[in-house]
């Protein structure tokens, strides 16, 4: 009976203040859609950046002749925790690569002898940032027999900077949008509280506890948030899988966070429910207190 009452009352707002409910549901879905987009863009950007960072390699040019046997170098480098993989480019293969890349123009050079042997090193993911890469480069530079260490530091710096910018912008947009959604939920609940003031007054008068009076509104906020999240997740899926994929096929290679669209969908539903519930609870508490008894 009590459960039945709660459920009936929590959906009755949909009937009593339909306009407010629709406005909230719309805003809630749009807000959560934007939040979802921010998350997705951040995630995509990260994937792209990780892909680019993966390509950054350290070239370690060796003095000629080598200070120690190549095998010893390789063994030492491979045991370095910062290093994922090492390839040795001998003088000969450096020349071959040069010739392949420059073709006949390469013939202009009399001898390929000027190309030194080198190691090409890929760092492990955790070291693929400007500071760590610089530290590793310094360390390698200090090794005996190393002529020069070269890598694209500018690219790493630029990537880092862009990631930071995108993250801040995403967080900013997400925050503002969420705030708007919260304001709207608070307002909707205020309207449904107003629409039910006679009921609330009577409940207060006969001694219903504050929580009991508030619960249907909290449940209403919870349902609105959940619905908003579900709608937002659906729109996001359509946007990405159908619209974006057909206009920008490059995005097809990107993965969904958690490897499955349902993960983000579920997260949005949960997050929406939480936001809806908390703002409704806040609003209901405030406005139920202000409902006079006579």
């Amino acid at each position, binding site marked *: 009976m009590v459960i039945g009452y709660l459920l009936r009352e929590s959906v009755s707002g949909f009937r009593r203040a339909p306009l407010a409910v629709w406005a909230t549901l719309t805003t809630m879905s749009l807000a959560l859609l934007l939040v979802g987009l921010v998350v997705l863009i951040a995630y995509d950007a990260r994937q792209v950046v990780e892909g680019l960072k993966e390509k950054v390699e350290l070239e370690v040019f060796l003095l000629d002749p080598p200070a120690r046997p190549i095998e010893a170098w390789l063994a030492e480098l491979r045991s370095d925790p910062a290093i994922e993989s090492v390839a040795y480019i001998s003088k000969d293969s450096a020349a071959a690569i040069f010739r392949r890349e420059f073709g006949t123009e390469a013939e202009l050079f009399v001898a390929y002898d000027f190309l030194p042997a080198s190691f090409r090193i890929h760092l492990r993911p955790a070291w693929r940032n400007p500071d760590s890469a610089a530290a590793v480069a310094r360390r390698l530079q200090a090794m005996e027999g190393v002529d020069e260490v070269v890598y694209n530091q500018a690219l790493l710096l630029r990537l880092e900077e862009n990631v930071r910018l995108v993250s801040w912008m995403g967080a900013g947009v997400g925050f503002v949008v969420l705030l708007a959604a919260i304001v709207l939920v608070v307002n909707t609940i205020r309207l449904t509280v107003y629409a039910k003031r006679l009921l609330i007054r009577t409940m207060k008068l006969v001694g219903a*506890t504050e929580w009991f009076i508030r619960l249907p509104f909290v449940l209403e906020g919870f349902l609105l948030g959940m619905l908003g999240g579900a709608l937002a997740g659906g729109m996001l899926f359509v946007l990405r899988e159908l619209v974006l994929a057909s206009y920008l096929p490059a995005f097809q290679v990107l993965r969904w966070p958690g490897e499955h669209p349902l993960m983000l969908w579920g997260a949005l539903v949960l997050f929406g429910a939480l936001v809806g519930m908390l703002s409704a609870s806040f609003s209901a508490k405030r406005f139920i207190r202000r409902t006079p*008894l006579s």
Partner: protein
Amino acid sequence: MKAATPLVILDRVRAGYEGRAVLDGVSFRLDQGEFCYLVGPTGSGKSTLLKLLYMELLPISGLVQVGAFRSDTIRPRQIPYLRRRLGVIFQDFQLLPDRSVFDNVAFVFYVTGRSGRDVRTRVLHLLTMVGLSHKRYRMPHELSGGEQQRVAIARALALDPELLLADEPTGNLDPHVSEDIMRILWNINRQGTAVLMATHDYAMVRRFPARTVALVDGRLVEVNPGVL
């Protein structure tokens, strides 16, 4: 003879709205099972005094005590439990228009966390007490004013309160319907519930004489009901 126990105590109460005192220096005591009228010109603060008792309003200074609940120590979350010990009825009945007579009364049980077959029996008993069990499926707007007030009384008595507060319960009713309502209140009082009734209706006070207090210029004085 059993010594009377105080149910309500007001001790030098000052109360009002936004710092403006409507009541000032009001002291009052109501015993268990007592019947008392509260009279005074319009705007003198009768409703304000009743609000103090169901603690919709807390005093600026002084003490209000109802049963074990004291205005100086009560927490907001305890107020519902105070209200379960009280019944309140108003001039405008304040029934819920969207549910039947039966559900208006049963509502009290639901919202205070009771349900089941006992509730049904109890609601029927209450409606019988006010003579309306045959109209239990009617909606409030299908009832006369007097009948609506009787539903409100049944609702107020649902949780077996020790005290019934009535704010001009006959204010909207014509004389002979008012008399029916008075008779019901009188009977309730005879069964042991204390009643405090704010009223303008001096004819009714003379017809059913009982202790009478009057609010004059923010103060409370005992008056002789015969001289009203």
